[in-house]
C-alpha cells in the first residue's frame, strides 16, 4: 500500500490507518471563514478578517491585542464545538493521536510499501513528525514529492471561477469571459469573434442566435450551469460537477480540477457541520486561499522564424469612391494615418469626450437654426432659451457616447454656457448685418477634375441686404487664433475644408464672399469668429509682423491654388501607383492617434514638456 500525504488525503489516511474521523485543516479554515462571513467579529477590521491567513491565526495563534485575541478565541471555540458536535477530530488533534498510536508498540499498523509526502503541507511541525514517525514505524521509504500542476492550471481555475459567477447570476460580461475560456467548447477565434460581434450593446445570446452554424451548445451549457445552481439545495460539489461536465476539459489541468472538486466537497462538509449554506463567492475565496498553483514547466526550444526580406512595394489599387476635405486633411497630416483610416479601416476610432461634445453641439445648432433661420426676428431671451433646449436635447441623445457621467454632465454644462455666448454673438451679429440661415449640415457634392467630393457644410448664411453667402464652420476644438494663421494653413495645404465648401457653393451658383470659423470651445471667452473675406486680389502681408486680427482676406487665386492641390492629391491617391504610406515626422500628430500601436514608423517623441 502506498500512502500519499498531502492536504487532500490526510482524512483518508487517518481513517484507513488509524480509524480516526477527522476534518482536515482546510475544512477547519473554511469553518472559520464561514463563521466570519455569517457574523463578522466587530473587533476585527474587515481587511484582516477577509485576508486568507486570518483563519490560521484564529485556529493556532493568540494575538497580542486583547480584543483581537478575544475574537479569535470566540471563533475558535465555536469551531471546536462544531467539530465536537459532529464527533470529528481536528487535524491537529488527529495527528497527535496518530503519533501516540505510532509510538504504541501494541498498535497494529497495516503494511506500507511507500510514503509519498508533499513538503509544502508535511514539511514542518506536527505534520513532519507524523510523516517521519509513520515511515520509521512502517519501515516504508519516505519520498518527498511536491504536488505540481501544468501551465493550464490558471486558465482551468479561471474557467471554474467564471462559471461559478455565471451560475450565481453573472451578466453578459461574465458569459463572454467564460466563452473566451479555452475550455468553453467554442473555438477561440469564434469565441472572440462573437464577443467582438456582440459589441457593447448586444447580448451574447442574441449574437450567438444570429449565427447560422451558431455556438448554441455553449448557450445550453450556460443554462445547465445556472440551473444546477438554482436547483433547490444544490451543493457546491454538484454545481462544480455540472460545470466540469459542461466545460470541455481534456486540455485542462487535472490536478487543479481535483483541487477544485476537493474544496467544493470541503465546502459541502462545512454546510453539514455548521447547518449553514454555501455561497459562490465564498467558494471562490476558498479557491484563492486554498489552491496553490505550483506550476511546473520548462521553456520550449524555440525555432525563430526567418526574417523576411523587405518586400517589394506593390502598388495599391486605385482608390474608388468619393473624397472629402477631411480625408485630404488627414492625408496631408499623415499618410500612414490616412492609410489605416481610409484604406484599411480595421480599427475603430472610438472618439473622445471632446469629439462627442463637438458632435452634440453641431447637432444642437442644426436643430436650432433649422427652426430659427432668421435670428433678427427673435428677442435675445428666446434665442438663449431655445439654444439651451436644443443643447440639452442633443446631449441627451449622445449621453451614452461619453465615457463617464461626469464627462457628460460637465460637457453639457460647458456647451450650455458656450451656447449662451454664441447666442449673444448671434443676436449682435444679426442686428449688425441681418442674415438668413439657408441651411445646416448641407450635403455638398462637387466634381473637381473628375474627382467626386462630398462633404457637409455646417451652416450657410445669406446676407439679407446683399444676398452674399457666408460659409460657416463650427469649431469646438482648438483652431487658428487669427485670420492670417488660418489663411497660412490653407496656403500650406494643411486645411482644405473651407476652400472645398467655397468651390462647392460657388459651383452651385452662390456668391460666397466670406468663410467663417466659429469657435465654440470655451465658455469663458466671447465668441470671436475667424473670418476670411474672399477677395479678387491677395492682400499684402505685413512682412515679419505677426497679424493677430481675426478678420482677414483670402483671394480667389489662393482658393484656386488650394483647389488645384486638392485635385493633385486626389490624383496621387487615385493613381494606383502608391506603394507605401509613410508616417508623419511630427510626433504631435501621433498624440491621440487611434493607430499608434499599429504604426511601426511612428516618430520618436520630441514635444516640449510641461512639468508639474
Amino acid at each position, binding site marked *: 500500500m502506498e500512502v500519499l500525504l498531502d492536504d487532500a488525503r490526510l482524512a483518508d489516511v487517518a481513517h484507513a490507518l488509524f480509524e480516526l474521523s477527522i476534518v482536515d485543516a482546510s475544512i477547519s479554515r473554511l469553518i472559520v471563514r464561514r463563521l466570519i462571513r455569517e457574523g463578522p467579529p466587530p473587533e476585527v477590521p474587515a481587511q484582516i478578517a477577509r485576508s486568507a491567513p486570518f483563519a490560521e491565526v484564529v485556529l493556532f495563534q493568540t494575538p497580542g491585542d486583547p480584543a483581537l485575541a478575544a475574537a479569535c478565541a470566540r471563533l475558535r471555540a465555536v469551531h471546536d464545538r462544531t467539530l465536537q458536535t459532529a464527533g470529528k477530530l481536528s487535524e491537529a488533534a488527529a495527528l497527535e493521536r496518530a503519533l501516540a498510536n505510532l509510538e504504541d508498540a501494541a498498535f497494529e499498523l497495516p503494511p506500507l510499501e511507500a510514503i509519498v509526502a508533499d513538503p509544502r503541507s508535511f514539511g514542518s511541525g506536527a505534520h513532519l513528525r507524523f510523516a517521519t514517525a509513520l515511515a520509521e514505524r512502517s519501515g516504508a521509504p519516505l519520498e518527498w514529492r511536491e504536488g505540481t500542476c501544468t501551465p493550464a492550471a490558471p486558465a482551468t481555475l479561471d474557467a471554474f471561477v467564471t462559471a461559478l459567477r455565471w451560475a450565481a447570476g453573472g451578466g453578459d460580461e461574465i458569459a463572454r469571459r467564460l466563452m473566451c475560456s479555452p475550455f468553453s467548447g467554442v473555438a477561440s477565434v469564434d469565441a472572440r469573434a462573437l464577443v467582438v460581434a456582440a459589441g457593447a450593446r448586444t447580448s451574447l445570446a442574441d*449574437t450567438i442566435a444570429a449565427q447560422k452554424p451558431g455556438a448554441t451548445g455553449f448557450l445550453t451549457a450556460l443554462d445547465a450551469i445556472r440551473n444546477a445552481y438554482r436547483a433547490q439545495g444544490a451543493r457546491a460539489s454538484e454545481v462544480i460537477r455540472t460545470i466540469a461536465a459542461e466545460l470541455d476539459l481534456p486540455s485542462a489541468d487535472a490536478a487543479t480540477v481535483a483541487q477544485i472538486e476537493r474544496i467544493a466537497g470541503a465546502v459541502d462538509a462545512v454546510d453539514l457541520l455548521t447547518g449553514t449554506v454555501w455561497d459562490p463567492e465564498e467558494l471562490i475565496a476558498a479557491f484563492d486561499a486554498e489552491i496553490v498553483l505550483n506550476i511546473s514547466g520548462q521553456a520550449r526550444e524555440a525555432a*525563430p522564424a526567418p526574417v523576411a526580406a523587405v518586400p517589394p512595394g*506593390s502598388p495599391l489599387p486605385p482608390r474608388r469612391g468619393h473624397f472629402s476635405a477631411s480625408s485630404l486633411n488627414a492625408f496631408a497630416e499623415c499618410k500612414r494615418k490616412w492609410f489605416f483610416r481610409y484604406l484599411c479601416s*480595421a480599427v475603430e476610432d472610438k472618439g473622445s469626450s471632446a469629439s462627442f461634445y463637438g458632435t452634440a453641439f453641431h447637432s444642437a445648432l442644426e436643430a436650432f437654426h433649422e427652426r430659427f433661420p432668421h435670428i433678427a426676428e427673435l428677442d435675445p431671451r428666446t434665442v438663449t432659451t431655445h439654444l439651451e433646449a436644443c443643447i440639452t436635447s442633443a446631449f441627451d441623445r449622445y449621453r451614452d457616447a461619453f465615457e463617464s457621467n461626469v464627462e457628460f454632465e460637465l460637457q453639457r454644462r460647458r456647451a450650455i454656457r458656450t451656447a449662451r455666448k454664441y447666442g449673444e454673438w448671434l443676436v449682435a451679429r444679426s442686428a449688425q448685418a441681418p442674415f438668413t440661415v439657408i441651411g445646416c449640415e448641407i450635403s455638398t457634392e462637387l466634381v473637381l477634375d473628375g474627382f467626386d467630393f462630398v462633404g457637409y457644410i455646417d451652416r450657410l448664411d445669406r446676407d439679407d441686404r446683399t444676398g452674399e453667402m457666408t460659409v460657416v464652420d463650427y469649431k469646438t476644438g482648438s483652431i487658428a487664433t487669427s485670420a492670417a494663421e488660418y489663411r497660412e494653413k490653407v496656403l500650406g495645404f494643411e486645411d482644405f475644408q473651407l476652400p472645398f465648401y467655397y468651390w462647392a457653393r460657388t459651383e452651385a451658383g452662390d456668391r460666397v464672399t466670406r468663410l467663417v470659423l466659429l469657435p465654440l470651445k470655451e465658455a469663458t471667452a466671447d465668441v470671436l469668429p475667424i473670418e476670411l473675406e474672399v477677395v479678387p486680389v491677395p492682400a499684402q502681408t505685413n512682412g515679419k509682423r505677426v497679424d493677430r486680427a481675426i478678420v482677414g482676406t483670402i483671394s480667389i487665386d489662393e482658393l484656386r491654388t488650394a483647389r488645384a492641390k486638392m485635385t493633385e492629391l486626389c490624383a496621387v491617391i487615385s493613381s494606383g501607383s502608391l506603394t507605401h504610406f509613410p508616417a508623419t515626422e511630427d510626433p504631435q500628430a501621433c498624440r491621440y492617434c487611434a493607430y499608434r500601436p499599429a504604426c511601426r514608423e511612428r516618430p520618436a517623441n520630441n514635444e516640449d*514638456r510641461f512639468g*508639474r
Partner: protein
Amino acid sequence: MNAAMGLDDQQRGVVAAPGEALVILTGAPGSGKTTALLRRAAARIAADPSISLERFILTSPLPRAGRLRTLVHEVIDPVRHRELESIPWLGGELATLAHAILAENALAAQLALDLTLIDEDESEIAFERAGASLFALEWTEFVSAEIDPELAGMRAPERFAAAALRLFRKLRAALIGPDQFLDRALRGAVEFYSAPPNFADPALLGATREDYRDSLSVDADELQRQRLREVDLAKVLGRLYQSYLDELVRAGCLTATDAIAEATRLLAEHPEIAQRYRRNFVAAFIDDAQDLTLGALRFLEALFGKDLSGVTLAGDRDQATQTLAGARPERIFTLAATTMELRGSYRTSATIAAAARTALGTPQSAAGSNDVRLFRARTLDEEAAFIADEAARLVARDANPGDVALAIRSFVWMRFYRDALVSAGLPVTMRGWIDLYDEPDVEDALALLWAACDPFRHDWLLRALATPTVRLNDLGLYLLCGEPSNPQTALFELPDDGDSVRSRWDRRRNLRLALNVVRGDRDADLDEPTHAAVVAFRERRSRWERSLLELRVEDAATAIIEEGGLREPVRGENDARAALRRDLLDALLRRITAYAVRDRRRSLHDFLTYAERTTLADRPPFDAIGSEGVAIGSIDALKGHEFAHVFVCNLRAGAFPAYYSPDAFLFSPTFGVIPKDNVGDAETTRTAKFTWYSHHAKLKDLYTSEDRRALFCAISRARESVTLTASGRATRGIGAPEFLAELQNARLPYATDLSGSWRPRSRR
C-alpha cells in the same frame, strides 16, 4: 578589510565618530560621502560580528539599480554575504524595511495579513477603482446635490485623477492623512477668503502674465463663488483620498511611500512595538539624505527616537532633486546633529566643479584645462549626432563605453540621443524611469503577444503583420483588411445594436482582419509571397495560442518573442543596435516574469491589459536595461555614480527645464487647496487664489531651482570632461530659463564653445 584604509583624515574622522548621536555628513559631489558612509557602516558592523546584519539599515531614498547593494557587498566581510542576501534594507529601499515591519505586525497595523508591496504604476489601478464611483457621479453627495461636480480639472477625468494621485502621493510622503488634508483645506479656505490678499498689489499684477491678469479683478460675490467651488473640491479630494487608501487596504497592497507612512503610523500608535524595534536596530546609514521625505524621516525617528541616535545621514542640499515630490532637505540638514563636512575632491576637476556651481546659479571662477565644452546644435538631430560623434571619438581613444554617460532630465527625448549613439556603433545601457512600452522593439513584441492572445485587437495585429518575420507590405495589409472576394465566405452576423452615435462605423470591420488572418478567408485574393507569409504567420500564431495553455506565462512569452524572430539579426543593423533590441526584449520578459510570478493566476492576456493600462501611468517603473555600454540615465538615476566623460543634453527651455505647468489644483498646508481652473459660471479661466499663490509661493522659481540642482548634479558626475548641449535657437528664457545659453553668455574662461564649429566626422 580595514575600514579606514585609503581614506583621508576627514573620512577617517567620519568612520571613527561616536555612533550614539545623529551624524550628518555633508560635502560637495565627489567629496567621498558615500565611501565614508559605507566605511562607517562597515566599521560598525565589524565591531561586533555577533550582531545580526538584520539590525543595521543602509539605504538611499533613490533607486540605484543595485549599485548601493554592490557597494555594501564590497565593504562587508564576505563570510557574511549569505546573510546579507535576505536583508533587502541593506543597500535596497527603506520601504522594504517598512514592509517587513508591517508584515510582522499586520494585526496591530490592522492591515491585511498577506500584504504586498507594489510599484507606483500598479497603485494607479487601485486608484482607478477608487475613483470609478466619483466619475460615475454615484457618490451620495452628488445625488443629493450637496456637492456640485463642476470642479477644477474635473472635465478631463483622466487628468483630474492623475493630478489627484500625484497630490495624494505627496500628502502620503508628508504623512498628511485624508482627515488632516480636509481639515487644513477647509481652514486654509476660511483664512484666505475671510481676509483676501491685495489682488491689486502692483508687484502681483506686474508678475502676472497678461492673459491671467483678469483673474485678479474679482468682486466679493465672485470670490465667494470661487470659495464654494474650492470647498467642494477639497471635500471631493478628501473623500477620494480616503477611498484610495481604503482600496489599497482592501486589496492588501501598498506602495513604497504607503508602506513607510503605514509603518510610521503603526510605530506611533504602538509604542511597545516601536520600543522593540528601537532596541533591535543598532544603526542606520542613509545616503542621498537630501532626497528623504518627511515621512521617511519620521519613520527613522520612530525607529531610532526623536534624536535619531545611531543614525548617520549623508547628503548634499545642492543635489536635492526631489523637493517637488516631497523631499524636505531643509528639515534634514537643520536637525541637531554632529555635522561633518567633507572637503576633499576625488572626482571632478576645479573647472568642472566651477561649471557645476555656475549652473547652480552661484558662479565660481576657476582656471585650468578645457574639460568643459558647450555646444548648441541647429536641430535635435544634429545635437544627437554631435553627442554620438564625440562619444565615439572618446571610445576610439580608449575610453571604456561604460565610463561615458549621457545625463538626461527626462526619458521622453531619450530615443533621439540613444539611437544616434547606437547608430555610431556604441552599445548603451539605460537607467531610469523608462517608458518601455513605448519602445518600437517592445511594441513589436507586444504586437505578437496580442496576436497570440487576441487577434481581434486589430491595432496590434496590423503591427504584428509588419514585424520582420512577416513583413507584409502596404498592399498586403490593405488586402487583409478587406472583404473576401468570395461572397460565400461566412462572416459573423451582426445583430443591430441600436447605436445611433457610432452608426457610421461598420462593425464588421472589427472582425474582418482577424478572420482573414486566422481563418484564411482572404487567402485566395493574396499574391504568392503575401499568401506564404500569412500562412506561415497563421501557423505560428496557432502554435502560440496553444502555448498559452502549455507553457508558463513567461515561457510562452519567451517562445513567442523568439519564434516571432524579434531577436534575429536584421540586415543592415550593427551589433549595438541588435544588442539594444535584445536588452529591451529581456527587460520586457523580466517584467512579464515578475508580473506572473507575483500571482500565478495571472495570464499573458492579463499582463497585456496591465501593460496597456500602465502606459498611461504618470511615471513608469524604474528600470536598468543593458549591462555594458554608454550609460544613458535620468539624473536621479545617475546619482551616486561617476563617469570619466559626461554629456548633459537638451539644455533648453521646454526640455531641461520643462515648462512649469501646474496641475488643476495645488495644496498648501497653510492655504489649503488652490484650484487653478476657474469653473462654473466663471468669467476668467484662472482663480484669483491661484494667480496670487503662484506669485506668493514663487512656484516657477521653485521648479526652476530644482532643475538647476539637477544640472549641478549631472555635471558633477564627470571626472575628466563634461559636455553640455542643446538644440535650436534659444528663447528669451521667459517661459523657462535657457540653461545652455546662460552658460554660453557667462563666457566661462575654462569652457570651449563648439557651437557652429563642429562638423560630423563623416563630413570632415
